[in-house]
């Protein structure tokens, strides 16, 4: 395939930029590091678009089906014939879509950070970390081998840790970075065990081969289905464990606790990582293994669906009560990813049944655009107001016109109002849910109403409600051009991206699918959304007492939602009271007393023994002679008796 080597440049350019900026940035390249990072990303973005064009329109299709193409493959480690860890690049519809999204959003964030992070002392380090993250994410989506995806998965986790804890002199940032890394690492334990189970069963680590073996009737599939453990087949266990890893990275309940805290990082970082790219890695993983889920283990797919739906509703409820604007957006992200997950969960495989898959990927695409836009807009607001809290904001619409307009577009998009992007993707999701699982459909519908409500609550609180008192700041303008241009570009895209005929390109089995908008069906969700917007208008457009009264009326439920349903406290309880006391303390005691004690005991023994023996070397010549003589006589006796 032409352009083979150009494809490897896509992740390679950010890697080179990372190395360059990481090694030399602090001393030599501080001023230009932003430009270097942005230029390398521009290169990657152009190459990705070119690759996408090539794949979707020119060379990808064979007999009307998009083929997964392995572009490069290099055997790295061979465990046994067939089970190798290869390093390779896999091009198929979802990976091409992902590289376009990742590079594009990353490019927007790079440009935006030129203005947002200006004057930051560790400017070059920031861009180095951003490049590292982009490289890891691109490697992740292009992986052809399940172990390779694990390697890049961990790399993404590391980059996230570095970026969340960027302001390392703040203890809250450091704690948040640790929390993110530990929670995702814990989930990755499940992922690793899942990898081992799947690769052991299918006797391969390569994606293409794995999917082929586990979706057609092969002896490996038969074996995996037959071996059961606690009532589930080993295939189901493998897939569920892999999903556990994905759930950790995508902040599904109950592994979601790290995402709100991760907002301690700089806002462009939140836009890139925790909205558009890293958190969808879990969805991407399930999508990658989707044929196996759908064809051979539909039970696992049900679990995926319910977890996604539950997370969506859970996050939406909490988001209605939060006052930190970044936290509202974080919970919104969790909710939307829940949408993507359950869309996969209700999907079947092939043709019309695969609608959920297509809808999930479509929503991933549009969500990346408008969530990045929301975060960047929030960043602009924070930059202006110097505070994260909704209470400090209000009436900013006249002071920040560009931000206001683009933020409004994004809110409309996320609420699913036509003709903006979110409407089309959400409609497909709801259609798929309606056809397969009415309960999930109901949850989805109510969640979309809540989504509209809390997003517009946020919008009205920031841009309307009260007049802004410029106590802290506001004397500089809305923001430099480098911050406004990405907002404008993303705003335009959020408006029109819904019209992309997605189903022609990305479906569960690679064949084209004709979809159309069912007007009658769409009435219900749009109505829910408009109701939410109206309620928010009533409550928040101008200051009044109604929200506070409602909060008191809901009473303990409101308190619970405000405190994020105390999940963090439960985790703290488990770790502190149970794990530390039952496992940690005894282990420490054993280590200090028994292990160290053993070593100390041997030391003491040696010392005492040597103290006893030491007197042998008395310096007394005759004593030495006596021993010498005795030994000689002894030897003579031995030789004489042995000689016979």
């Amino acid at each position, binding site marked *: 395939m032409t352009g083979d080597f150009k494809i490897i440049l896509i992740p390679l350019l950010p890697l080179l930029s990372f190395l360059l900026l990481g090694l030399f940035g602090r001393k030599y390249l501080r001023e230009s590091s932003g430009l270097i990072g942005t230029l390398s990303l521009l290169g990657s973005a152009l190459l990705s678009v070119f690759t996408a064009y090539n794949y979707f329109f020119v060379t990808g299709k064979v007999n009307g089906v998009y083929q997964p193409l392995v572009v490069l493959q290099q055997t790295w480690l061979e465990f046994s014939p067939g089970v190798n860890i290869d390093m390779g690049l896999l091009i198929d519809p979802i990976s091409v879509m992902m590289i376009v999204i990742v590079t594009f959003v990353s490019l927007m964030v790079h440009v935006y950070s030129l203005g947002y992070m200006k004057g930051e002392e560790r400017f070059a380090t920031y861009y180095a970390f951003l490049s590292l993250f982009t490289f890891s994410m691109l490697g992740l989506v292009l992986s052809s081998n399940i172990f390779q995806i694990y390697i890049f998965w961990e790399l993404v986790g590391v980059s996230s840790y570095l970026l969340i804890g960027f302001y390392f002199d703040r203890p809250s940032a450091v704690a948040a970075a640790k929390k993110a890394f530990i929670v995702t690492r814990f989930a990755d334990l499940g992922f690793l065990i899942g990898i081992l189970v799947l690769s052991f069963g299918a006797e391969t680590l390569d994606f293409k081969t794995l999917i082929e073996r586990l979706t057609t009737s092969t002896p490996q599939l038969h074996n995996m289905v037959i071996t059961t453990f606690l009532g589930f087949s080993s295939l189901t266990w493998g897939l569920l464990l892999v999903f556990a890893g994905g759930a950790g990275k995508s902040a599904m309940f109950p592994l979601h606790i790290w995402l709100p805290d991760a907002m301690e990082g700089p806002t462009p970082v939140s836009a890139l990582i925790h909205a558009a790219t890293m958190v969808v890695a879990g969805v991407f993983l399930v999508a990658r293994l989707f044929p196996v889920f759908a064809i051979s283990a539909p039970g696992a797919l049900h679990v995926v669906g319910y977890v996604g739906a539950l997370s969506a509703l859970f996050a939406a409820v909490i988001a209605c009560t939060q006052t930190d604007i970044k936290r509202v957006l974080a919970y919104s992200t969790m909710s939307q990813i829940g949408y993507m997950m359950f869309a996969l969960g209700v999907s079947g495989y092939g043709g019309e049944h695969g609608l959920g898959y297509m809808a999930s990927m479509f929503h991933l695409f549009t969500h990346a655009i408008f969530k990045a836009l929301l975060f960047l807009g929030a960043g602009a607001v924070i930059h202006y107001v110097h505070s994260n809290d909704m209470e400090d904001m209000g009436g900013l619409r006249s002071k920040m016109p560009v931000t206001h307009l683009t933020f409004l577009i994004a809110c409309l998009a996320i609420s699913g109002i036509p003709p903006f992007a979110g409407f089309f993707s959400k409609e497909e999701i709801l259609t798929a849910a309606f056809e397969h699982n009415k309960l999930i459909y109901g949850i989805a519908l109510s969640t979309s109403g809540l989504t509209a409500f809390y997003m517009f609550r946020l919008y009205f609180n920031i841009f309307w409600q009260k007049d802004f008192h410029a106590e802290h700041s506001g004397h500089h303008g809305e923001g430099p051009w480098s911050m406004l241009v990405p907002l404008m570009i993303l705003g335009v895209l959020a408006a029109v991206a819904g019209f992309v005929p997605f189903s022609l390109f990305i479906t569960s089995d690679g064949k084209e699918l004709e979809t159309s908008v069912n007007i009658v069906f769409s009435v219900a969700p749009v109505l829910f959304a408009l109701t939410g917007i109206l309620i928010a208008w009533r409550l928040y457009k101008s200051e009044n007492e109604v929200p506070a009264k409602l909060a008191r009326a809901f009473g303990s439920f409101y308190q619970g939602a405000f405190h994020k349903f105390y999940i963090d406290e439960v985790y703290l309880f488990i770790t502190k009271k149970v794990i530390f006391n039952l496992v940690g303390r005894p282990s420490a005691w054993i280590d200090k007393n028994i292990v160290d004690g053993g070593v100390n005991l041997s030391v003491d023994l040696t010392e005492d023994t040597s103290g006893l023996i*030491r*007197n042998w*070397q*008395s*310096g*007394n*010549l*005759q004593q030495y*002679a*006596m021993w010498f*003589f005795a030994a000689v006589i002894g030897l003579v006796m031995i030789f004489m008796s042995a000689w016979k």
Partner: protein
Amino acid sequence: MNHILFLSTALFFIGVYGFLTRRNVITMLMAIELLLNSVNINFIAFNKYLYADKLDGVFFTLFLIAIAAAEASVAIAIIINIYRNYRSIDVDDVDSLKW
């Protein structure tokens, strides 16, 4: 011939006893001379009774006497040095090479 061997053995062990017991360095040297002499008697005895046609035992004895002389002189030199440094020739006082 066995009697001569008994004699030399007894002399040897008298020398050993003297070496292990005496405190004065010079008397230790004297005991060493007794040891060497007992070995000489042994060589001569074997030469006379078992190998009468060869002279090897005689030669051994001659060389051994020469070596004993050399060794005794070196030992005296060391003793004089010890006396200079430790102001005593008691072997129990010369125990610096201990732990």
